[in-house]
C-alpha cells in the first residue's frame, strides 16, 4: 500500500521534471534535455504500471486492508471479475487512465524519437502535463491506496453484479485507450502550433495513433452497446445517456479529422480546420471523463457527486483557452495552399462530411448539456428525451451515410459529367434495387429507415464497383487470378481499401440500427406457468419456473437465481426452449436480516436471447417474490435469535442459511406466482455487431503498415547505420 502511494508521488515528480526538461530542451536547443524529458515519459509508464499492478494484486488476493478492495470486491467474486473490479471504482479507473496514457505516450515518443524534433518536446510536455493532472488527482483527491478504517474485514462488499459480464474485462480498457490515445494527436497538434511547424508531418506521424484511438473508442462504444443489450434487461443498446454521448462526441470529431487530414496531406488545405478538430477531440475526450466523474449531469453510468468536478473543469478550461489562443495566433501560418476548385469534387464531399459530423457532435453536445444551459437561461432544468435526440440526429446520420458513399466515387479537384456517369450509375442502381426490395418487404411505413436502407445499398454498391474495377485492372496488368488480384489490390493500398471496408461496415451498422429501432415489437406481459402469448409473430409458452441457489467456489452463498423456461415458436418452425432468469445477490446493508438480504440486494437479468440475421428474440423475467415475504421474515427472526444467542458456528450458520434459502427457492419453483416478462422481437440487431466486426477488419487493414512504408523505413534505418559507421574510425 505504501509502495503504491510512493509510486504515485514519484509519478507526479517525474511529470513535473519531464515538463521542465522538455520545455527547457526545446527552448535552449539542448537535445540531451529533450531526450531526458522523453525518458521521463518512459519512467512514468514504469511507475504507474507498478502502482497499477500493486492494486491489481491486492484485488486478486482479496486483501481487504485496501479500502478500495473492501468496497469493490469480495471472496465470492470470481477471480476473473476480481481482476476487472480494479477499474469499477473511481480511483482504480483514474489509475488505469494514467497507466494507459503513459504507455501510449511512451510508444508514440519512442516511434518518433528521431523525427519531429521541433514538435516532439512540446508534445512530451503536454502529455506529461495530462499525466501530471491525473497523478495529482490520484495523490491528493482519490487515492486508490487508502487503508481500511478499523479492523480488516473478513469479507468485502463485492463487485456490483451488473458489472459481472465478460465485457467488463475489455469495454472500459478500450474506452480509456481511445480517450488516452486521442491525447497523442492533441499533444502533437499543440507541439506543431507552438513550434510553428504546420505542414502535414505531424498528421502523418500521429495518424496510426489517431486511427487506433478512433478504433478503440469505436469498439468500446459498440461493446458497451452490446453489453447494455444483453445484460441490462431493458432491451435497448443506446439510451442517449450523457455518459454514452460523452464517448460518442470525440469519436465523431475524430472521424471528421481522419477524413479532413487526407485533404491537408494531399492538397495542403483545411489546416485551421484540422488543428481545431484535433484539439477539440482532445478536449472532448477529457470532457467525457469529466462527465462520468463530476456528477454534474444525471446519468445512469456516472460516478455521482464527487470532488473531482472542479479540477476537471480547470483542466478543460485551460485546454480550451490554450487551443483557441494557439489557433488564433498561428492563423497566418495555417493559410491553405490551395483553394476548393469545385463543389463537385472529393474535397467538397469530405468537407460536407466533416460539417455533418461536427453538426452531429454539436447537436449531441447541446442535448447533453441542455439541462445546464436551460437552467442558466430560465432558472429551471429542462431535459431532452431520446425521441428528441433521434429527431435531430437521424436526418444527419442519413446524410452522413450518403456522403460516405459519394466520397470514394467522386474525383479529386473537379468531377466531370463523364466521371459522374461512369462512377455513379451502378451504385445508384444498387441503392434503387435495395429500396425496391425494402418496399416489397413492407418497410414503406418508415420513410427514414427506407432512405437509410437505400443509401446503405448505394455505399455497398460503390465500394463493390471500386473493388471489381481494381481487381480487373490487376488481372490485366499482372495476370493474377481473382483472389490473388484482390489481395494484392488491398495490400498495395491498405489505407484506401481499409477505409472502404470501414464505410461498408458503418453502412451495415446503420441498416441494423434503422431496422431494429423502426420495426421492433415490444411487450411487457404477466404470465403464470402454462400461459401463452403472441408477440411479433412468435408464440411464447411459459413452460416452468426455475429456482436455484448458487455457492461460490469457497463455499459462501453467492446468489439465488429465479427464472423461467419458455417455449418459443415462429410460424412453422420447430419450437425451441429459451431460458431467462434473474439473479439476486445478497446486500451488505447492516439493517437487513440474514435471509432478506438475499432479496433486497442487487439483482441482474440474464436475458434469454435467440439471435439471428433476420431478427432477435429477446426475453427477460421479473419474478414476483412477494409471496415469499412471510417466510423470508420468519427466517430472519430465527437466524437473528440464533445469532444473538451465539448458538451457531460460522460453518453451521452458512449450512443452515443454505438450507433455508434452498427451501425458499424450492417453494418458488413448486408454487410459482405469475411473473412479469419483457418480450422484444427486434429485426436485424445482429447486423449492428456484424457491421462493427467489418469496421474492425477495415480499420486493421488501414492500420497495417504498407509494404512500401516498411521498405522506406528499412532503407532509412540502413542509410542511417551506414552514415553512423562511416563516421566511426575502424
Amino acid at each position, binding site marked *: 500500500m505504501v509502495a503504491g502511494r510512493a509510486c504515485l508521488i514519484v509519478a507526479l515528480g517525474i511529470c513535473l521534471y519531464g515538463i521542465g526538461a522538455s520545455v527547457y530542451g526545446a527552448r535552449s536547443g539542448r537535445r540531451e534535455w529533450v531526450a531526458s524529458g522523453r525518458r521521463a515519459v518512459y519512467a512514468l509508464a514504469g511507475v504507474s504500471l507498478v502502482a497499477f499492478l500493486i492494486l491489481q494484486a491486492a484485488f486478486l488476493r482479496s486483501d481487504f486492508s485496501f479500502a478500495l478492495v473492501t468496497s*469493490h470486491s469480495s471472496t465470492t467474486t470470481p477471480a476473473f471479475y476480481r481482476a476487472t473490479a480494479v477499474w*469499477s471504482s*473511481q480511483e482504480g479507473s483514474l489509475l488505469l487512465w494514467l497507466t494507459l496514457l503513459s504507455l501510449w505516450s511512451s510508444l508514440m515518443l519512442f516511434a518518433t524519437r528521431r523525427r519531429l524534433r521541433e514538435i516532439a518536446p512540446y508534445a512530451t510536455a503536454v502529455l506529461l502535463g495530462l499525466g501530471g493532472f491525473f497523478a495529482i488527482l490520484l495523490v491528493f483527491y482519490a487515492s486508490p491506496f487508502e487503508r481500511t478504517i478499523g479492523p480488516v474485514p473478513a469479507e468485502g462488499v463485492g*463487485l*456490483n453484479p*451488473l*458489472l459481472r459480464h465478460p465485457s467488463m474485462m475489455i469495454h472500459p480498457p478500450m474506452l480509456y485507450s481511445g480517450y488516452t490515445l486521442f491525447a497523442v494527436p492533441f499533444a502533437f497538434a499543440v507541439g506543431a502550433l507552438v513550434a510553428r511547424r504546420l505542414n502535414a508531418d505531424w498528421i502523418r506521424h500521429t495518424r496510426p495513433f489517431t486511427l487506433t484511438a478512433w478504433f478503440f473508442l469505436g469498439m468500446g462504444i459498440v461493446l458497451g452497446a452490446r453489453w447494455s443489450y444483453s445484460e*441490462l*434487461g*431493458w432491451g435497448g443498446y443506446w*439510451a442517449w*445517456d450523457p455518459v454514452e454521448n460523452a464517448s460518442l462526441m470525440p469519436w465523431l470529431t475524430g472521424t471528421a479529422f481522419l477524413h479532413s487530414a487526407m485533404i491537408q496531406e494531399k492538397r495542403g488545405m483545411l489546416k485551421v480546420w484540422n488543428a481545431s478538430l484535433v484539439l477539440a477531440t482532445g478536449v472532448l475526450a477529457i470532457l467525457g471523463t469529466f462527465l*462520468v466523474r463530476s*456528477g454534474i449531469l*444525471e*446519468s*445512469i*453510468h*456516472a*460516478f*455521482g*457527486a*464527487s*470532488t473531482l468536478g472542479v479540477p476537471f473543469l480547470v483542466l478543460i478550461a485551460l485546454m480550451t483557452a490554450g487551443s483557441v489562443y494557439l489557433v488564433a495566433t498561428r492563423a497566418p501560418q495555417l493559410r491553405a495552399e490551395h483553394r476548393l476548385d469545385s463543389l463537385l469534387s472529393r474535397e467538397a464531399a469530405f468537407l460536407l462530411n466533416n460539417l455533418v459530423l461536427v*453538426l452531429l457532435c454539436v*447537436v449531441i453536445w*447541446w*442535448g447533453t448539456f*441542455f*439541462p445546464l444551459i*436551460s437552467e442558466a437561461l430560465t432558472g*429551471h*432544468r*429542462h*431535459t*431532452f*428525451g431520446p425521441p*428528441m435526440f433521434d*429527431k*435531430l440526429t437521424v436526418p444527419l446520420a442519413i446524410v452522413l451515410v450518403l456522403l460516405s458513399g459519394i466520397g470514394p466515387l467522386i474525383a479529386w479537384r473537379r468531377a466531370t459529367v463523364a466521371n459522374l456517369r461512369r462512377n455513379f450509375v451502378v451504385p445508384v442502381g444498387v441503392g434503387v434495387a435495395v429500396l425496391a426490395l425494402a418496399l416489397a418487404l413492407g418497410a414503406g411505413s418508415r420513410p427514414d429507415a427506407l432512405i437509410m436502407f437505400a443509401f446503405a445499398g448505394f455505399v455497398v454498391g460503390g465500394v463493390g464497383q471500386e473493388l471489381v474495377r481494381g481487381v480487373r485492372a490487376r488481372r490485366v496488368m499482372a495476370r493474377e487470378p481473382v483472389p490473388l488480384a484482390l489481395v494484392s489490390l488491398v495490400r498495395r493500398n491498405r489505407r484506401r481499401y481499409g477505409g472502404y471496408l470501414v464505410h461498408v461496415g458503418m453502412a451495415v451498422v446503420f441498416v441494423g440500427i434503422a431496422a431494429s429501432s423502426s420495426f421492433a415489437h415490444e411487450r*411487457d*406481459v*404477466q404470465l403464470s406457468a402454462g400461459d401463452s402469448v403472441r408477440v411479433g409473430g412468435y408464440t411464447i409458452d411459459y413452460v416452468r419456473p426455475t429456482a436455484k441457489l448458487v455457492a461460490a467456489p469457497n463455499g459462501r452463498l453467492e446468489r439465488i437465481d429465479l427464472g423461467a423456461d419458455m417455449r418459443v415458436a415462429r410460424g412453422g418452425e420447430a419450437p425451441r426452449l429459451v431460458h431467462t432468469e*434473474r439473479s439476486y445477490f445478497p446486500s451488505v446493508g447492516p439493517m437487513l436480516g440474514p435471509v432478506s438480504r438475499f432479496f*433486497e440486494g*442487487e*439483482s*441482474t*437479468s440474464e436475458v434469454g436471447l435467440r439471435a439471428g440475421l433476420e431478427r432477435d428474440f429477446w426475453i*427477460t423475467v*421479473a419474478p*414476483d417474490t*412477494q409471496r415469499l415475504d412471510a417466510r423470508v421474515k420468519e427466517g430472519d427472526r430465527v437466524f437473528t435469535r440464533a445469532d444473538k444467542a451465539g448458538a451457531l458456528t460460522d460453518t453451521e450458520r452458512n449450512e443452515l442459511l443454505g438450507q433455508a434459502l434452498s427451501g425458499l427457492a424450492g417453494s418458488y419453483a413448486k408454487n410459482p406466482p*405469475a411473473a*412479469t416478462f*419483457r418480450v422484444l422481437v427486434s429485426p436485424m440487431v445482429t447486423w449492428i455487431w456484424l457491421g462493427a466486426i467489418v469496421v474492425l477488419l477495415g480499420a486493421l487493414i488501414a492500420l497495417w503498415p504498407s509494404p512500401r512504408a516498411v521498405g522506406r523505413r528499412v532503407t532509412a534505418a540502413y542509410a542511417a547505420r551506414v552514415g553512423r559507421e562511416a563516421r566511426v574510425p575502424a
Partner: protein
Amino acid sequence: MDPARKRTVRLVVALSAAVLLAAALVYTSFSASSEARSPSQLLSSAQPGKTYQLTGKVVAGYQRSGTTTNFRVRDRSGNISVPVRYVGALPDPFRAGREVIVDVRKEGGVFVGEKDSLVTKCPSKFTAEKT
C-alpha cells in the same frame, strides 16, 4: 464578381445559415423538452397533463401488481415525496433508497410514469460526496 466580394458573400451566407440552424435548435429544444423537478417542486407547482422529469429516491414499501408498480419518490435530502404509478418492466437496479429519474405526468393525485422512461442510477458508481 471580384474574389474579395465573393468571399464576403460566402461568409455572410454561411453565418446566416449557422444562425438560422442555431435558432431552430434552441426553439425545438425548449418546445420539446421536459422540466426536471424534485418531488417537493413537483408538489408545489405541477400542472396536470404537462410532462416533467422527476428525480429523487425511491421510498421503501413499493407495491407491484402485474406490470404496474406503485411507489413514492422523495427528495434527495428530505422526506417530501410524491406517488408514482409506473407500467412496464423495472430496471434491474431499482430498489428502495436508490436514485431514479422518470418522466411523469400529473393525473389526479398521482404522477404517471411514461413508458420506458424510468432509469435507476448504477449503484456501483454512485458514491456520496466525500466531505
